[in-house]
């Protein structure tokens, strides 16, 4: 099974060769941007602008006074044509501000966020969230609960999802930003150690980081295996510490941030730059796969068009990676802070639609690959029979939803889908 830095795991084909060598290229400014007011986990923002208002690039257009939230900024200078709703990649309807950019745009300038000397406040004001896809507001992570000392900052550059190369290109092309972000995070939380962890399928990125890292930052290459980039698995691989059941990762003294998040934090603290754009890998069955610097609010349909459109028989379009991303029902959804990729999957590559409930043949593959040591076949059966207590007793809540079980299942049972149901039932029961 090869080397392994954590228990379980799978080796899905990487498909990264299509874009790994493509330098980041700026996607054009679209004719209209639909900027969602909820691009993070937590309370959605209220609009700060109205229809007909003129906005500047970098101007805050949405905010909310809540602990877990992040403000939203306009990625362009232009006119608000609508304050309405949009569908997100995740399928939710959220408030959104539609902006028509003035031509021409000066993307080098922006309205900087206010600097009152408080780094945490500045990270919040810049609207920074976890850009690996979780979109958890970064300021919350940077403010660990009292009594939970952080000694190690880990930057996650694993990018273990197949197809995606946006973090790879960022580390390779702009290692200084990543390393600067790592140092800022370290200083904010008062940690003593910084490790940048990435999979060993990106040796060029590791070399680029090492060149600028200095002796205070460790760059560690880990075996290429999914889900190496999952927070708990990464902490275990680097520190050999398990995040205790039911506790925050900070309980191990480690704090994990994605490399793109770290770069955004550096931008915010050094230049007052709010989060207005990100690198997105557009790949799979498209004519010009590549890594694009995309203004937030750009519609996926515009991005696909810029990438030359679909080729072949595209069966699913995924926002994010194919293991954890969301299948899109429409391409009229905007790129948001957590959008790492747009992947067009052809027939034969895409998982086939689930039809009948297939029997478990007890082959033993799912417990073998589960990185959490769970027994997915049992959890799925309990969930299917609505046996929530039994599922809870078998630690259904510990599922990290990586999908390794569904990936390996030879009878293609919808294991993760069933487990998610059991998990949410168990969690809502626990909350009552």
């Amino acid at each position: 099974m090869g080397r392994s830095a954590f228990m379980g795991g799978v080796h899905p084909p990487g498909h990264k060769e299509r874009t790994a060598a493509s330098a980041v290229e700026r996607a054009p400014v679209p004719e209209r941007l639909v900027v969602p007011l909820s691009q993070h986990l937590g309370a959605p923002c209220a609009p700060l602008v109205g229809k007909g208002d003129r906005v500047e690039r970098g101007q805050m257009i949405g905010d909310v006074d809540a602990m877990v939230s992040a403000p939203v900024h306009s990625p362009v200078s232009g006119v608000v044509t609508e304050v309405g709703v949009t569908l997100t990649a995740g399928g939710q309807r959220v408030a959104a501000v539609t902006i028509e950019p003035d031509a021409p745009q000066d993307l080098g300038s922006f309205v900087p966020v206010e600097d009152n000397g408080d780094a945490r406040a500045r990270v919040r004001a810049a609207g920074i969230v976890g850009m690996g896809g979780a979109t958890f507001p970064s300021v919350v992570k940077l403010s660990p609960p009292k009594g939970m000392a952080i000694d190690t900052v880990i930057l996650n550059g694993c990018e273990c999802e197949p197809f995606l190369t946006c973090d790879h290109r960022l580390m390779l092309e702009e290692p200084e930003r990543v390393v600067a972000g790592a140092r800022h995070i370290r200083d904010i939380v008062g940690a003593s150690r910084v490790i940048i962890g990435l999979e060993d399928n990106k040796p060029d990125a590791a070399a680029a980081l090492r060149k600028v890292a200095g002796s205070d930052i460790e760059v560690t290459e880990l075996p290429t295996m999914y889900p190496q980039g999952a927070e708990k698995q990464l902490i275990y691989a680097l520190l050999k510490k398990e995040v205790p059941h039911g506790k925050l990762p900070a309980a191990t003294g480690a704090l994990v941030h994605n490399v793109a998040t770290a770069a955004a934090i550096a931008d915010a603290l050094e230049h007052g730059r709010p989060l207005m754009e990100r690198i997105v890998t557009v790949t799979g069955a498209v004519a010009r796969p590549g890594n694009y610097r995309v203004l937030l609010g750009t519609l996926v349909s515009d991005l696909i068009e810029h990438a030359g459109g679909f080729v072949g028989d595209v069966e699913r379009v995924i926002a994010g990676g194919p293991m954890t991303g969301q299948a899109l029902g429409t391409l009229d959804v905007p790129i948001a802070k957590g959008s790492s990729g747009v992947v067009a999957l052809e027939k034969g590559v895409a998982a086939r639609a689930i039809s009948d409930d297939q029997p478990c043949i007890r082959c033993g593959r799912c417990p073998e690959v589960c990185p959490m040591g769970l027994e997915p076949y049992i959890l799925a059966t309990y969930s299917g029979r609505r046996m929530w207590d039994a599922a809870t007793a078998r630690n259904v809540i510990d599922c990290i939803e990586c999908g390794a079980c569904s990936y390996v299942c030879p009878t293609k049972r919808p294991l993760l889908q069933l487990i998610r149901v059991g998990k949410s039932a168990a969690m809502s029961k626990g909350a009552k």
Partner: protein
Amino acid sequence: MSDPRVQQHIVGPSPHITSKATCSGIMLWVVAALAPAAIWAIVNMGLVAVQLLVVTIGVAIGTEAAWNAIARRPQTILDGSALVTGLLLALALPPRTPWWMAAVGAFIAIALGKMVFGGLGHNLFNPALVGRAFVALSWAGVLAGVENRGWFRTLADVSAEGYDTISGATRLAVAAADRAASGGYGFDLAAQYEPLLLKNLEGSLGEISAALLILGGAVLIIKGIIDWRIPAGYIGTMGIVSWAFGSDPVFHVLAGGVLLGAFFMATDYVSSPMSKKGRLIYGIGCGLFNALGRFVGPMPESTTFAILFMNGLAPLIDRMTRPRVFGVVKNDE
């Protein structure tokens, strides 16, 4: 600006890609791994072997198809598991088994071994072994080689091969009888290695060449289809216990149904444990009961019942060998 083609895109839950492994693909690998032994049987036995294979495979698939049709369940014969059951049953029966006995065995294997439990994935016991056990218990003489000279191609053929010193029973049976009578053996066990490995014309259809069974088992292990822990535990224990009883471990591993059982029967997913540790325990249990059956019990050929017994213990073994959940320390709950 919605792309009209998007309407055809499938929206489903993640993960959006899956491994290439399929149930029928796995079953076909098992068939491929058994093919050399089956073909070698046909080469050596001729039409009797073909007849046995056709009857058991045909009846196994036919029984499953008919059951599904009568029960108005979706048809499942294409998953390949009935084919594997039929093939395994043929290979576990003496070549001269009367066709109707083989047919009854195949029917019982699928109907009582599998479909009554709810079909593939739900059976507690290995269906092929259920079928074989039924035949063995119903017509004991046939499998013991007393009637119909079930073990042999023909007596004349066997004589021509130079094995005329053994008549009416397998080497295993002779060895057991010798041991019971005198505590020793009337023939040199080590001299049997070569015929057992290459061309043993006694025993069941699938036992003609131990070397081909080992080859097929190795392919399944390398392909990741079966877990090495089951055959390793089984064969290792069989050898050690044989040695402990003062007998030749190599002879006892090569003779009889041990290899067919260890690589192809005990490794049946549905009726064996799920965890790695559980599989090792289960393999050791199979080897232990198989050896005890030979040295202590009444039957020199005890593979079938050793595995069926361990099938029954598999759920218990699973319960005892649950994986440790990440982040959960003992006494944590």
